[in-house]
């Protein structure tokens, strides 16, 4: 993606308790397709226990929508991990 056409950028760093949780978060977000790749790009990766989301967009309006939507998804992921991680015996046996 040509960064010149997407001049507005935001990097979001979300630390988790473990590297595994950060990998789960990145893997969960990654399949979600970008609907307008000519207007916004989002890259997800994990670095140790951190989830790193890199947004680039054509305008403030577009980056605001993308960032807010992804944060909503991350909050759901955090809630799921908080509820279920390490509790396999409790919930699935």
């Amino acid at each position, binding site marked *: 993606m040509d960064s010149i056409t997407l001049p*507005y950028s935001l990097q979001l760093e979300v630390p988790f308790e473990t590297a595994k949780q950060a990998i789960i978060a990145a893997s969960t977000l990654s399949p979600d397709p970008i609907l307008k790749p000519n207007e916004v790009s989002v890259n997800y990766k994990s670095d140790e226990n951190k989830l790193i989301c890199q947004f680039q967009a054509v305008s403030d309006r577009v980056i605001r929508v993308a960032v807010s939507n992804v944060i909503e998804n991350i909050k759901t992921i955090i809630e799921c991990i908080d509820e279920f991680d390490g509790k396999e015996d409790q919930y699935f046996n």
Partner: protein
Amino acid sequence: MSSLIPKATYSAPDLDESKIFTPGDGIHTTDGQTTQISDIVINAGGEDRDKPTEAKDTPLGHLRAELTTLQDQINIFLTERMKQEKNKQSEQEEADIERRILDDGVDEDDSD
């Protein structure tokens, strides 16, 4: 205080320095200012059926609340920038119309 602190770094062509967002030391909740249903619906007695659950008293629960604060900060900051950009565009359009009328003698209502 939570040990898991989210952070965001924003940059734009018109900013000399990046803007860094951190939740800060205040009270954080999952009930975000910018993610609720509209004031119009609330004032009409509407209920937010998708209201998030309260944060648990765990490191991840605190992270979810702090991330909501960070989301509010980013949304408010970017909304303000969008307003400023819109105002700039309106002023520019007014200046263009004024210049065309005064300098070129163009009458906007003249259909010929």
